[in-house]
């Protein structure tokens, strides 16, 4: 008992329960905990357990210890596909950071100007792609990039630079980049919205003060606004990181579940889908055990990333308080 009390106190549980107000907060937590545990945490944890099992169907029942992980890292074919999907996912993430989030920051900077004509209209346009179904944007971009009757090819021909056009989607070197760009195009409205919220929260006085001190717009942006935006940049980065590692739809809709050509657009989401659920065309023989192992590894990668961000950001905010 003493141990339990000690542990509870250590985690701040005991003290908190004593103050009625804090008890209220904990009551606030309960509905979330219940529904989240029942419909998400429990089913998922229970499924991650499957990474230690093997068998046919979606509920393998033969315990094999770490064999699925060994297969994933040891078997030539599995390992090749797995490392390929993993590195593709990092590239996918890198392009989203470099394009989607940088553009988001740029747009938010521009849109946060007080006297910009048509600000709301621009904002809506930037957001429109995010409202469209991935099935739709995939089809439209495939049509635009089509080497036979694509708009882009026609455009480059009129400019006289036909040679700039390539069948990017059929090229192992470019396909992933193009898919990432389309995805960035679609979702850039979300970081824009979040960055804009951050910019608009910056009090005018701060900016005015800097202006009086003779700082120009760029200096104000770099020295004052950007540091204040750090927490939101962190959130956006983490959301992009998590989103990209679980991404599936855009590759599935644009290229198919196999990530053609030659698995060059295969990312963790599609790899997991094939391994765990769908199998590979036309066989459809999936291996839930290995799929669960893939998901568990993805989870661990994300957990490491997110935890280090949490620790880092906490340190930062503590430093900020101290400083």
């Amino acid at each position: 008992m003493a141990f339990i009390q000690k542990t509870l106190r250590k985690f701040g549980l005991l003290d908190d329960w004593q103050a009625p107000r804090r008890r209220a907060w904990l009551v606030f937590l309960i509905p979330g905990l219940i529904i989240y545990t029942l419909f998400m945490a429990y089913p998922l944890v229970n499924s991650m357990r499957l990474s230690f099992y093997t068998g046919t169907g979606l509920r393998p029942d033969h315990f094999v210890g770490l064999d699925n992980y060994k297969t994933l890292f040891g078997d030539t074919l599995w390992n090749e596909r797995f490392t390929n999907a993993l590195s593709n996912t990092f590239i996918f993430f890198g392009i989203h950071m470099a394009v989607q989030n940088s553009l988001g920051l740029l747009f938010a900077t521009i849109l946060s100007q007080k006297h910009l004509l048509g600000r709301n209209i621009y904002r809506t346009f930037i957001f429109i792609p995010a409202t469209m179904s991935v099935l739709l944007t995939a089809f439209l971009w495939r049509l635009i990039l089509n080497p036979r009757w694509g708009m882009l090819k026609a455009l480059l021909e009129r400019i006289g630079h036909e040679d700039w056009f390539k069948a990017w989607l059929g090229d192992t070197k470019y396909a992933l980049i193009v898919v990432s760009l389309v995805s960035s195009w679609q979702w850039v409205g979300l970081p824009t919205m979040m960055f804009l919220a951050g910019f608009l929260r910056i009090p005018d006085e701060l900016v005015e003060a800097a202006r009086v001190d003779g700082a120009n717009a760029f200096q104000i942006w770099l020295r004052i606004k950007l540091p204040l935006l750090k927490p939101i940049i962190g959130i956006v980065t983490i959301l992009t990181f998590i989103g990209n590692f679980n991404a599936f739809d855009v590759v599935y809709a644009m290229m198919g579940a196999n990530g053609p050509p030659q698995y060059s657009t295969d990312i963790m989401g599609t790899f997991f889908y094939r391994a765990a659920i769908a199998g590979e065309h036309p066989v459809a023989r999936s291996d839930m055990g290995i799929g669960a192992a893939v998901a568990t590894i993805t989870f661990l990668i994300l957990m490491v990333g997110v935890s280090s961000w949490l620790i880092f950001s906490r340190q930062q905010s503590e430093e900020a308080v101290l400083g």
Partner: protein
Amino acid sequence: MKKTLLVLILVAAVVVGMGHKAPVSKAQDEVTLTLGSWRVDDVEQIDALTAAFHEAYPNINVVFDPTNPPDYNATLQSQFETGNAPDLMYLRSFAVGRGLYDQGFISDISDVPGLTDAFTEGSLAAWSTEDGVHYGVPLMAVSHGIYYNVDLFNELGIEIPQTWEELLAAAQVLKDNGYDAFANASGEPWTIAEIVFMNLAPNFIGGYEGRMAYLNGERCFNDEHSVAAFQAMADLAPYVPEDNSALTYYDSQQIFLLGEAGMWMGGSWDIPFFESEEPDFDWSVFAVPAPAAQEEEYVTFHVDAAIGMNAATEHPDEARLFLQWMTTPEFAALFGNLLPGFFPLNVQAPTLDDPHADAFLKLNEGRGLDVRWAWEGLLDGEPTGYNLMQDNAIAVLNGEITPQEAADNLQNGLAEWFAPAQACGQ
């Protein structure tokens, strides 16, 4: 305040709206069976089919409930595991259907009256175990051939090629006149595998007997016949559209329909679509010709789908009645004419009203028939014969590897798990 009120009303409206449910009224003795499928294209036709069944058996309703093809297998598997699966469902041939049977999800239907009379051993084999248990009633086969633009052929004075060499010569004529010879493209890899490589392969490996020689280890997968099949891919390389690596199946169909390509190596399932598109030229189909030195010719006539029965269905007797009905010649005639391009497998093959479908079926006359090369046996391990054929055929088409290398890759890949390939040639 007004806004809060508005939100509350909205919530209330939504919640109330959810209360309304379409009442499910059913007469006591009426039974409804669901029929799962990946053929979302065929809702109208299958509805007509089930209506005919309903007329014969007024107390049974069959509801067609298809899933979009890429999600079908995965959805069906989850439905089985959670007890939501339909009573009857389309089964893919060989490995996939077999997987469901091995998991105990679908019934042994060997005792359905008329089954073995209505279908050949060959068609039944795609849904049977080694011990002779049948778990699916064969529904349809698809055929493969080369569609061609009749008007364009006439205009350029091209005869229907009788040999592989003549085919290449015809392709050269088309190319010289500024047309794409073939509309086929590799943007969707399966198209190269299923409607190009496996379409032409039987003529080079010697049809059923040749394929069996691979499956029982008499031949290695990198023997001269296999190399010849990959060589045929290399032969085609100059005649496919520019930038074909980024062209999809739809693009290819449209290239042919727009008259920009003279030929399209395709499957019989394209017939209804091509008919509905009404291209402004005459089109027909010929079989992939064999090399000049070879007498026998072959057509890839692939058993594609059967209908199986959920082992846990609440209405096994009614479901069996439907399966039994499927063995009748009336069903075959109805099905074959409702869905031109999908051929019923009944031994009493009906006459087909659709001229294109009829022409396609006529290609079978005097030619050996066989299923697609990769299906039987070669899908049971990793890497699958399907993937190896697909990836290497594309690589040959793109000029990245030689036909010999492609055949070697196929042999080495299969030798990792396929016993006959490991022991071959001895």
